[in-house]
């Protein structure tokens, strides 16, 4: 859909405000502008009448159904599904995740710990390639001020929205996406918990987990 820019003549600018003139939610300045224009524009007067007709139908109250049965049904789904904020709840929420998601996160964690362990045991030089499950790359792995989060965005999220979330989080993508659409983000250590919580609460984000082996998992 092409977004229309409502600038130009006083008529066209005012005409776009009419739906909210009719429902009386314009601010005082807008209200005064529309009143002035309406006094001299028969076309907008007719449009207001049309919109009032729409409003009179749409605003009719609907029959209120008894919410008791539906609440009882929902209540039975509630507690196990709540986003965890304590270790006890973590287990409940984890068990409610889809199997593929549990598998993906578990694989990432196992790989992180595994690769880190092997590198320590063998004294290998830093790998020249990285996967989403890798510990942070050389140069950042020693940087104690950074933490890493694995994030899965909704497949329908718009690119601009994703960029907005990343900017707001002061996070940068250091890897991904993999086949499951997962990214690894680097965030300042001090902001790890707040960024994680904010992303979890944001629309368009499906999963957020701390990736660092020593990170706080909640």
């Amino acid at each position: 859909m092409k977004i229309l820019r409502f600038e130009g003549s006083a008529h066209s600018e005012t005409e776009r405000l009419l739906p909210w003139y009719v429902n009386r939610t314009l601010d005082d300045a807008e209200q005064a502008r529309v009143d002035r224009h309406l006094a001299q524009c028969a076309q907008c007067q007719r449009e207001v009448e049309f919109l009032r007709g729409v409003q009179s139908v749409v605003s009719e109250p609907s029959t209120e159904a008894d919410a008791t049965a539906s609440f009882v049904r929902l209540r039975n789904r509630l507690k196990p599904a709540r986003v965890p904020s304590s270790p006890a709840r973590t287990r409940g929420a984890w068990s409610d995740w889809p199997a593929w998601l549990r598998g993906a996160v578990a694989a990432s964690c196992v790989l992180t710990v595994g690769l880190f362990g092997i590198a320590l045991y063998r004294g290998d030089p830093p790998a020249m390639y990285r996967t989403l499950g890798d510990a942070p790359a050389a140069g950042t792995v020693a940087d104690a001020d950074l933490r890493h989060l694995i994030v899965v965005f909704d497949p329908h999220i718009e690119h601009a929205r994703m960029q907005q979330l990343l900017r707001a989080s002061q996070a940068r993508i250091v890897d991904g996406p993999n086949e499951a659409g997962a990214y690894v983000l680097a965030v300042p250590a001090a902001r790890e918990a707040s960024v994680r919580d904010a992303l979890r609460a944001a629309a368009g984000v499906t999963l957020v987990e701390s990736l660092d082996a020593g990170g706080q998992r909640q």
Partner: protein
Amino acid sequence: MTAGIGGEVSRGDALVDEVALMERVADEQMDAFEALYRLYHPKLTRFLTGMTHRPALVEEILDDTMLVVWRRAHTFDPEAKVSTWIFGIAYRQALKALRQSGDSVAAAELDDAPMPSPEPAPDLELQQRDLRAMLDGAMRALSAEQRATIELTYYLGYACREIAIIMDCPVDTVKTRMFYARRRLRALLGAGREEAM
């Protein structure tokens, strides 16, 4: 039940402080959640029915919405308006459900032709009963996003900027959706009137 200022809603003679209710929901108090649920059940049912025109989906979307409210209550900003937060969740859940059902949620690309002239005004000559029947049919021809804009404006009484918050989009996008919705309704109601004559 009417929306009020400062997150208060009147229900009968009682004033409900919705922000306080949300704080208790965030604290996992089930009685508070039930009160919030009962407060929003009728409005959500009506909004979702009007937006989706898919009665079979409404109950499921409403459940999913309130489930998110329960799970995310601790992330609610007390400076925000509870109703816009909840309807924003409901709107996203409805879009998600419609997409999963294979329904198109956005309007087809339309040309930039100007708004049809309101003259002759078909609504002025219609009785309320006829208008209701014809408008109900015409609303089905709109996109889910357009129907949501109309429901939020005229059933729930939101300002344009509040609808932009609920839909998580710029104010101009809301005005654009309403512009095309009005144009489509006018065309359909005009055609309906001619058929009836």
